[in-house]
């Protein structure tokens, strides 16, 4: 009925209604299930801004090869720290059964460019020619 009626004679129901709470909890569970694998394999890097950046769909895929250089000059392949000299053979291994020979590079805005070039040399040693420089498109 559209209008609430007062039934003062009936017994008062004193149970808490848990259905909305369960709803909210399930939603939070789903959100964290979706977000956690995305945050897991990423090295903490402050990306430089680039206004001309285009969307790179494949970069966020699970099997994308991402090389990262952090602010303190460490080189990471995916989530593992590697020496720049070992990058070549390791990327070659990863590329072996992939058709898309493209590597993504995440450089910190304050990382040393010499270290970045060492990493790029390592990528070049694996025979890769296309490199996607991941950047952040500033919100205008």
């Amino acid at each position, binding site marked *: 009925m559209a209008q609430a009626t007062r039934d003062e004679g009936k017994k008062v129901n004193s149970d808490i209604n848990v259905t909305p709470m369960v709803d909210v909890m399930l939603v939070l569970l789903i959100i964290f299930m*979706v977000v956690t694998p995305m945050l897991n394999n990423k090295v903490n890097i402050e990306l430089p801004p*680039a206004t*001309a950046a285009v969307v790179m769909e494949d970069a966020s895929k699970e099997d994308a090869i991402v090389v990262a250089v952090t602010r303190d000059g460490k080189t990471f392949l995916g989530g593992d720290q590697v020496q720049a000299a070992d990058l070549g053979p390791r990327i070659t291994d990863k590329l072996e059964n992939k058709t898309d020979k493209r590597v*993504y590079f995440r450089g910190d805005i*304050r990382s040393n*460019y010499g270290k970045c070039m060492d990493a790029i040399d390592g990528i070049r040693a694996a025979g890769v*020619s*296309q490199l996607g420089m991941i*950047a952040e498109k500033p919100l205008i």
Partner: protein
Amino acid sequence: MGMGGGGGSGARSDINVTPLIDVLLVLLIIFMVIQPSTMRGLDTLVPQPPKNHDAEPDTRTIVVQVLGSGGGNPSYKINEDAVTIDTLTAKLQEIFATRNDKVMFVKGDKDLDFGQVLPVINDGHAAGVDNIGIITPAVESGH
């Protein structure tokens, strides 16, 4: 009402939209969380060093250099002409307006920060240069 024959109360024929709105709000929240993680980036190329070292360098090749100046703001050069970062896009647009080969190279000092070199790649893309190669010291020395 039309259908209810039994009860004295009128049957409600409105659809209950509350669960629908619930589900839509949840989807909205999920996509709001996912959306910022789409990666964006700039395409670059890593050239292999030339096979024959005696080859005559092409004079039409555009190389943008980023030169560090001891911690201060870096200076920029297109081949041998000094430019500022503000005019770089315009200069590149002017150069590549009459060209068919949209190729340029970026060379940066190793003492710089990555964040000082990336704007050059960005300006190149903004000027419509599709192929931007990154020159490292190893490429220059031919290894």
